[in-house]
């Protein structure tokens, strides 16, 4: 039994010691969220693409989600080995900027398909929070929050907890941007329709796919996944007339980065056509530049009416908005 314990321990240690071997090339350390670096995510292809020209090794270190990545950098402070953080978003970039840990990227970002003037963060994809439904089961989806509220209570939606999930927080911002002072009233109206509020997007989407609810809070790009990867076009997003709140995913260079030039080169690489062509069918978001036919038709056109989120206002009031929404749902 003791030899077995030793063997098991040795196996565990070996399994993790091996990747440290690659020596002479410099290593670019990237902190990102788990599904970005996972085998189906954009990570592997971006790593391979960048390594072809950089003469370096790209090493991903993952956390559960984007905000955990930021927390990890905050905890590690100046001693962090990270050069880049990839995967912060609209809701977290303001807080990330306020930590003072990020350096200017120094790139001139031209030809982006979204207006952009951020000195620290480089956008690499974006999407909009939206309610996704099954066209066969729900031929006439609601087209606004108020229409949704007016439906019978048996029409159920699944949403995510704003304290633990990015779309959950996005939902709060969406209602806030669309209704301002009326937001608590809208939340009260939604209450009877909310089947449950899950910890993360995965659980909510799983409940929806299992047929437990009529709509799920997800992204405008979710139907494209089913159309492209599963050849199934029965899913769509409800076209809410209030407009949509964007989630822009960004990457940033840390002031403490050891590989500053490589880091900047990777940021520049992220917005090249080569990298952008990888994004849509791995991260299931819109590319930030026009990649023409490389974007599957199933992605359609991004919604036209966009509700902007002001970073300063979000930083000042985000917490209060979340509290107000939760209080209205109690």
């Amino acid at each position, binding site marked *: 039994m003791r030899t077995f314990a030793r063997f*098991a321990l040795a196996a565990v240690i070996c399994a*993790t010691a091996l990747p440290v071997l690659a020596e002479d090339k410099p290593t670019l350390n990237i902190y990102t969220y788990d599904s970005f670096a996972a085998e189906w*995510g954009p990570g592997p292809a971006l790593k391979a693409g960048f390594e072809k020209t950089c003469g370096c090794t790209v090493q991903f270190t993952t*956390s559960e989600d984007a905000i955990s990545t930021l927390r990890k950098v905050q905890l590690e402070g100046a001693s962090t080995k990270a050069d880049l953080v990839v995967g912060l978003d609209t809701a977290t970039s303001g807080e990330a900027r306020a930590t003072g840990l990020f350096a200017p990227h120094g790139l001139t970002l031209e030809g982006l398909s979204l207006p952009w003037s951020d000195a620290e963060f480089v956008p690499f994809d974006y999407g909009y929070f939206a309610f996704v439904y099954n066209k066969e089961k729900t031929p006439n989806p609601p087209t606004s929050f108020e229409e949704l509220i007016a439906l019978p209570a048996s029409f159920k939606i699944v949403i995510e907890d704003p*304290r633990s999930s990015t779309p959950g927080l996005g939902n709060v911002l969406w209602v806030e941007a669309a209704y301002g002072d009326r937001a608590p009233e809208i939340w009260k109206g939604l209450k009877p329709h909310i089947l449950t509020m899950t910890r993360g997007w995965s659980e909510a989407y799983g409940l929806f796919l299992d*047929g437990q609810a009529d709509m799920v809070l997800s992204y405008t790009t979710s139907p494209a996944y089913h159309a492209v990867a599963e050849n199934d076009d029965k899913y769509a997003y409800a076209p809410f007339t209030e407009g949509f709140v964007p989630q822009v995913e960004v990457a940033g260079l840390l002031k403490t980065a050891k590989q500053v030039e490589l880091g900047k080169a990777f940021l520049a690489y992220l917005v090249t056509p080569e990298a952008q062509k990888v994004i849509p069918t791995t991260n299931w978001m819109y590319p930030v530049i026009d990649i023409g036919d490389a974007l599957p038709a199933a992605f359609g056109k991004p919604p036209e009416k966009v509700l902007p989120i002001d970073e300063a206002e979000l930083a000042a009031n985000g917490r209060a908005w979340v509290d107000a929404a939760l209080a209205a749902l109690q």
Partner: protein
Amino acid sequence: MLLSPRSSNLVLPHRPLRLLAGAAIAAAIAALVALVLLAILATAAGEPSRQSRVDVWHLVVMTSIQAGLTTILSLLVGTALAWALNRLRFPGRDLVVGLFASAIVTPGLIVAFGLLAVWGRAGWINQAALALTGHPFEVPLFGLAGILAAHVILDASFAARILLARLDSIPEKRLKTGQSLGLGAWQRFTVIDWPMLRTTLPGLAAIIFLLAFTSFPIVLLLGGGPANQTLEVAIYAAVRLDFDLNGAVTLALVQIGICSAVILAASAFAPISASTGGSTPPRWRDGAVARIAQWVVLAFGIVGFALPLLAILIDGIGPGILDVASRESFWKALGTSLALGSGSAILTLLLALGIGMGRAASGRPLLRIGIGAPAYAYLAVPAVVLSLGAFLLVRNAGLLPETAGPVVVLLANGLLSLPFALATLAPPLDAIAERRGRLIRSLGLGGWRQFMAVEWPLIGREAGVVLALSFCFSLGDLGVIALFGTEDFTTLPLLMYRALGAYRSNDAAAIAALMLVITIAAFVLLPKLVGKLTDARS
């Protein structure tokens, strides 16, 4: 079961080494919990503690009600099931027992989804009702009822497994005496079974309460909205969303405090186990009424507990499984999970033996509490706090998180299953010390001989259950991995969540089914295997 009055004429063999080892393990666990919290506080030093947005007392009351109900229901259902399973013999009984035991170590989310697959809006029952009667049969699964249902599936089946092990180890002699006295079914339960069960119930109650109190994904998945929450959710929000580390530690201390009070209260009620044995019981059927009741309990148990797990298997076993199995990442994750599971199973068994034998060697109630309680308190530390604290400790020690990660995960998983191991092993160890102490002393056996000749042969079956429990816990738990992960260190549950998070629900279902198969196999095989080993030695 920690604080227990022992009979005055008790003769315990003098075992200073065992006491020392037990006390050392307990002190190390307590120190670890303290260090984790201190590491977080040290990092948070200087940061202003923000105005807490959490209504702590409301949460504490809500969580306590939920956890209390879960505990009572689970123990009632678990006792009934153990009673039925102990009496009945039927083909496939081992499989049913294995299935029950595997519920608690299956990730809660999988069980919740299994529950929905049977009882939910698009579930089997509702679809059958629609097809047969044209009317939907919807069970209100979201809200407190759903949380309780999922918790009871997880915890009552586990309680049943532990209690069954106690009933199965009632010595042949007692049964023969009872049978010859012609005890009725009720008398048999109160006179023979109950003294055996009640030694284990307080420990089980403490564990189930702790699990329900700290439950997180199930509560959010089935809670139906922010009205149903636990402290654990608030702690997660404090760390993740607010980055309010001082607040998180404060909330964690509230949680640990409440849970410790429950542990101590449970200990105060626990007497020492009456006796233990390991032989095959003689056939002794209860009367017709009791037997009918047993079959009914079993039928309900199978419908309630086995169907959701069956739904997971049916959902996952399909053509998708080949696709998953053809990927290198799956085999890598499987290898890592199996290695972690084996490692932490052995670690748990050793720690549980150390603590259990240390406690059994002492006649002093306070010392017994001191040795036993830290293992339980560990369970009350919120996972997110544990993960954060461990990460900070590793960094402060100058180690690379990715390198230290597997060792930390191994240790964390081993400790996580320690209370379950103690609930299984401590009662028989106590009973042996109590019943055979005089004999051991008069024979002048040394500690090692005592273990090899007396204890190990008697606890073999329980040791097997402990190995299986800990193995599967490790297999199914994400634990502290959150902040340590690199893309190279993947376990099966991590792979499953990754698939879920990437729209690949079929892959996730396949992985969930495979994990369940491994778990059930471990629970059917390991206790038998270890039982055989101990039989051969005795």
